[in-house]
């Protein structure tokens, strides 16, 4: 609870902005869906066969998992707001179409006959009789679509369209329940508020509903148009994965680029999505640069390089040449820090048994009760390989969820855990990481990834971004992560502080 209040206090502005994005995305999608589905249902109301085919198509579209749909859309329309809206519209069309069609075709045939026998024109019959009679059904379709949209719109965060999903994804990614709750509760609240608003709309007359909808279209359209005109021309888009660390890095890139090249504008897209989304976005040209780990490149992006070397320099070289030959991408020099697995113990435990390296554990292996992340416990690159390389046999090793792991060692339930080298908890809980003296863990070094095309067009980016090469140690990164995730400072501030204190920025 305290966490939630703290986040609300420090990030209130951002949250309001996200709510705005979420509402904008949802309303635009809902309007477009309604503008497609309702006229379509009217067109097909007297063509049963075509209408059935249409119902089938919309149902099939509905069954595509939202993530898959977003994935399909990225190569076609890129990332950001446009594919999110397209995906949301695709989902929302079905309930609106289905309900409108049902509403129009289940009107009492006697009323239809009366309207026909009175010689009413097609238009008058539709607007005076059929649509008003179908209105409750149409409204309920819109309501269903709206709840669906507000829920699904949380996924828009995955492809950089922002919204409340940002907090949910960030919460999951960083194991921060407070963020997760904020995102989930706010989107649920939005669904409730909009549901009530739509119910209220449903009680108004047909004419008033039309006027309100038209006003909304104009307002949103005008706002979007204004935003388009008013937004400054951006030349370079730097994106980052979920979490504080990429956000700090992309802010460093931004500061460095804008400092060295005053005529360049950099747009940052923090918490943009997972690895494959970012990589696809980079390929499609929706983003220009993002920081990627050498280990991740070999593991999941390039083909045929599964056996990662344990030598960081060699890993970087292999990754770099594979990216160049397979994707025509440029991978600039990595920073110093490693964000890979490590083993951590408490300060007192390390002092008591003089532990500095992983090899030192051999002497006390009978006293070690380890708590491991389930992945680490199973993967070849994790515990099984580690115990072989170092010839270690711990007294016990349990698997536990990553977030519980650190609490367990603080509470003395275990005395050794695995972690990522830059986890802020290492600083927060005063833990000591043990040196991987046999270089068992595969190296994960962060370096800026971009297309060769960008670098050819702007060769001046290379020296600028290479200023970070070999900089930012693991401890630096831990401290910065600590300030952002635990102390809730702004990533941009933390990044600038670092650059200034290391003479990279005046």
């Amino acid at each position: 609870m305290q966490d939630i209040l703290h986040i609300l206090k420090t990030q209130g502005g951002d949250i309001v902005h996200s709510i705005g994005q979420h509402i904008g995305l949802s309303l635009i999608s809902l309007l477009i869906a309604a503008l497609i589905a309702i006229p379509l249902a009217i067109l097909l109301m007297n063509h049963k066969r075509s209408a059935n085919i249409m119902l089938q198509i919309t149902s099939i579209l509905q069954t595509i998992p939202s993530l898959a749909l977003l994935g399909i859309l990225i190569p076609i329309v890129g990332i950001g707001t446009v594919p999110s809206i397209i995906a949301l519209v695709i989902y929302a069309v079905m309930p609106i179409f289905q309900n409108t069609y049902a509403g129009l075709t289940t009107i009492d045939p006697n009323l239809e006959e009366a309207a026909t026998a009175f010689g009413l024109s097609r238009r008058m019959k539709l607007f005076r009789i059929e649509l008003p009679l179908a209105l409750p059904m149409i409204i309920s379709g819109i309501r269903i679509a709206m709840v669906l949209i507000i829920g699904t719109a949380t996924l828009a965060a995955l492809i950089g369209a922002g919204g409340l999903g940002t907090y949910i994804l960030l919460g999951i990614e960083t194991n921060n329940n407070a963020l997760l709750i904020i995102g989930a509760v706010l989107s649920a609240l939005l669904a409730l508020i909009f549901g009530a608003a739509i119910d209220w709309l449903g009680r108004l007359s047909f004419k008033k509903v039309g006027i309100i909808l038209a006003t909304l279209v104009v307002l949103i359209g005008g706002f979007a148009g204004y935003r388009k005109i008013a937004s400054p021309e951006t030349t370079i888009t730097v994106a980052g994965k979920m979490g504080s660390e990429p956000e700090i890095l992309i802010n460093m890139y931004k500061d460095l680029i804008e400092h060295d090249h005053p005529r360049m504008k950099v747009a940052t897209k923090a918490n943009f999505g997972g690895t494959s989304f970012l990589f696809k976005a980079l390929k499609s040209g929706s983003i220009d640069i993002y920081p990627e780990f050498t280990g991740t490149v070999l593991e999941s992006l390039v083909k045929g390089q599964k056996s990662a070397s344990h030598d960081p320099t060699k890993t970087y070289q292999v990754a770099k040449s594979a990216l160049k030959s397979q994707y025509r991408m440029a991978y600039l020099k990595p920073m110093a820090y490693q964000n890979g697995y490590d083993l951590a113990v408490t300060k007192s435990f390390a002092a008591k048994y003089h532990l500095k390296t992983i090899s030192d554990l051999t002497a006390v292996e009978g006293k070690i009760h380890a708590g491991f992340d389930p992945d680490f416990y199973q993967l070849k690159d994790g515990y099984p390989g580690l115990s072989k390389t170092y010839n270690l046999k711990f007294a016990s090793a349990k698997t536990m969820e990553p977030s519980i792991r650190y609490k367990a060692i603080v509470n003395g339930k275990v005395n050794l855990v695995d972690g990522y080298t830059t986890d802020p908890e290492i600083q927060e809980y005063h833990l000591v990481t043990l040196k991987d003296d046999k270089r068992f863990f595969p190296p994960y070094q962060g370096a800026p990834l971009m297309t060769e095309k960008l670098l050819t067009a702007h060769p001046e980016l290379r020296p600028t971004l290479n200023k970070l090469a070999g900089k930012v140690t693991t401890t630096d990164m831990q401290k910065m992560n600590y300030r952002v995730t635990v102390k809730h400072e702004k990533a941009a501030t933390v990044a600038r502080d670092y650059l200034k204190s290391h003479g990279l920025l005046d």
Partner: protein
Amino acid sequence: MIEFKNVSKRYTTNQAINDLNLTIPTGDFFVLVGPSGSGKTTTLKMLNRLIEPTDGNIYFNDKRIIDYDLKQLRLQMGYVLQNIALFPNLTIQENIAIQAESLGWPRKERIERARALLKQVDLDPDKYATRMPSELSGGEQQRVGIIRALAIKPKVVLMDEPFSALDPISRKQLQDLVLRLHKELSMTFVFVTHDMHEALRLGQHIAVMRLGHIQQVGTSQDIMEHPANDFVRGFFETEQAVQPETIQRLLDHGYGTATAAAPSLSTTSTVSELAAALKTTSAAVVATESGSRELSTADLLDYLAMKEVD
């Protein structure tokens, strides 16, 4: 004048109308009567082209109806439906003026016309004009249904079993109403019913139909006195055989309790008279040979329910 010349209507499985020839004089109250499946409703709906004939021609004022502009034709033919079919989303006055609206009458004139028509059928415009159809009783709704068909002064009014869904009392009131309207308005009324009694009561001319054929056309007197064939005679006789039930039947079934109150009905009063009496009081008193007996609404309902089961 309306003329059917060699009109047939075939559906894939059956012949609804077979070589129909019929003349309906201008200004007539013409009733089509027959059992279900006789083709009477099909005949009616061919007039405003809700149904198109497969063969033959229908003439309206010496011009084939297929040569009329469809909308113009329909605007000249008012239409009253069996299920009343008032538009539930429109107020009473909007319902009445729907055709006027489609003709682009100014709003003020539409309202005036609707109010005048309401007055004509004894519905207070101040009370009814802006109500929704669901707030009216069935009989009131069908009054509105009738005046809706009259709103733009059509030449012909088509009525498709308009009273079959109403209770006997409302039915009688509305029969009187259409007779009065017909007298006042000099329009041609074409009226479909399966109820011979209703046909005899309303029609200046009656066409008796069976299985897509006309059996006989004539005045009520013609048909009663000179039935053309056994079918017409039979149809007419069943009509005669059905005598209105008297209160004696209720008493025979043991309904009613002894009372000292003054009687207002006799044992030969009809059940509908009892129903009418029960509308104003909670119990009606009947004079019998063995003293006065009191019949309540519950007694009547029980009796009718029992009859229903039979």
